[in-house]
């Protein structure tokens, strides 16, 4: 487990993709903030401006800017690169679940899903989310190297004979 201040970053990030983006934004921000003349501007304000310049999504911007002051006070000119590197290396050891959902989930739903997984599966889990319309409903996921299909399309396959019979009966009855 990383340092408690850094735990805030992990706690508010549920997908590997978002985590990598946040680390990149922080690295570029600190590079500018510590080595350029920022005239003592407040760090969160500077961060917000920087993220606007990077065209970060509102969700990522909010989650980063809303991190506690103790998170940002942890970084300085000498340590920000090494700390972010160690965080990146730390996260590589966390378990990953690959999920296939039928529709694109908004950030809020991603957050809810991540919370459910960290509550019911593992508190250090990260997701890799993909959209698979053939699932129709429900989801498929890969966990511990095994594929689990709980999609609607799988259910239809499971009842193929009944469906065919139903159609035949429909055809016969007109």
């Amino acid at each position, binding site marked *: 487990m990383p340092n408690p201040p850094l735990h805030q970053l992990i706690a508010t990030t549920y997908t590997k993709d978002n985590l990598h983006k946040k680390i990149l934004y922080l690295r570029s921000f600190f590079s500018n903030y510590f080595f350029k003349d920022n005239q003592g501007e407040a760090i969160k304000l500077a961060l917000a401006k920087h993220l606007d310049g990077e065209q970060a999504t509102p969700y990522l911007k909010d989650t980063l800017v809303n991190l506690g002051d103790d998170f940002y006070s942890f970084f300085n000119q000498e340590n920000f690169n090494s700390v972010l590197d160690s965080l990146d290396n730390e996260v590589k050891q966390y378990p990953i679940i690959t999920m296939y959902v*039928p529709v694109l989930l908004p950030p809020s*739903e991603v957050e809810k899903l991540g919370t459910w997984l960290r509550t019911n599966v593992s508190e250090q889990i990260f997701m890799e989310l993909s959209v698979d319309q053939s699932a129709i409903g429900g989801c498929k996921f890969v966990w511990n190297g095994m594929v*689990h299909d*709980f999609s*609607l399309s799988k259910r239809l396959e499971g009842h*193929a004979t009944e*469906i065919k019979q139903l159609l035949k009966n429909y055809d016969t009855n007109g």
Partner: protein
Amino acid sequence: MLDSLLTETGSLTLLIVVLLFLVVVLLLFLVMNNRRMSNMTYPVYDFVVKDAQKKANQITHDAMKESRKILTEAELAGIKTVAKSKVESKHVEADYEEQLDALTQETQTMLTKYGEHMDAELARLTDALEKRIAVGIQKNENFLQEETDKLSKQLASTFGTLEANAKEQIRSNVEAEFIGVKKVIETYRQERFALIDNELLSLIENTTQVALQKSLNLADHTDLLYKALEEAKSKGSFS
């Protein structure tokens, strides 16, 4: 010593000069002597030569005279001989022509006789041959006619049999073809139905997918999502 040597040399030179003078005088004496000798002997030689020449001329004259005589005699003999042979050859020529004419006449007569005989024989032969050919042609025509009649009857019989066989063959082939086609159609029908049955499920899936995407909202999807996750959890998929 040098003086004595010079004195000896002078004496030697003088001696040599004197000797040379003597040799020259001797040579002159010899030349003059020869000239005198030749002047003395020339008239005798001249006489002998002239005499010989005269005799030679005489001999030559006699020889020429004799040769002219011989030539004249030879010419005369030759002319006589030529005249004689001309006369004789004229006789021979006349005889030859006479005999040649006789021979020619005889040959012509014989050839005419043989020619007439040959014509007669040829006419007789041709006549006989024509008669033979006419008979042969007639026989061949009769034979051909008989054979043609036989062949026609055989062909008619064969064609009739072939036609019947071909009709039967065609009929049975067409029947077999129809039976085969019916089987193929039936097999195709069954295969198509099986294919439709197999594809029916994916068709239903695609239709359902399209229909549900249009009808399900985000809340419905998330509801289905969490139901699926709960089911997975209950079945121990996350253990």
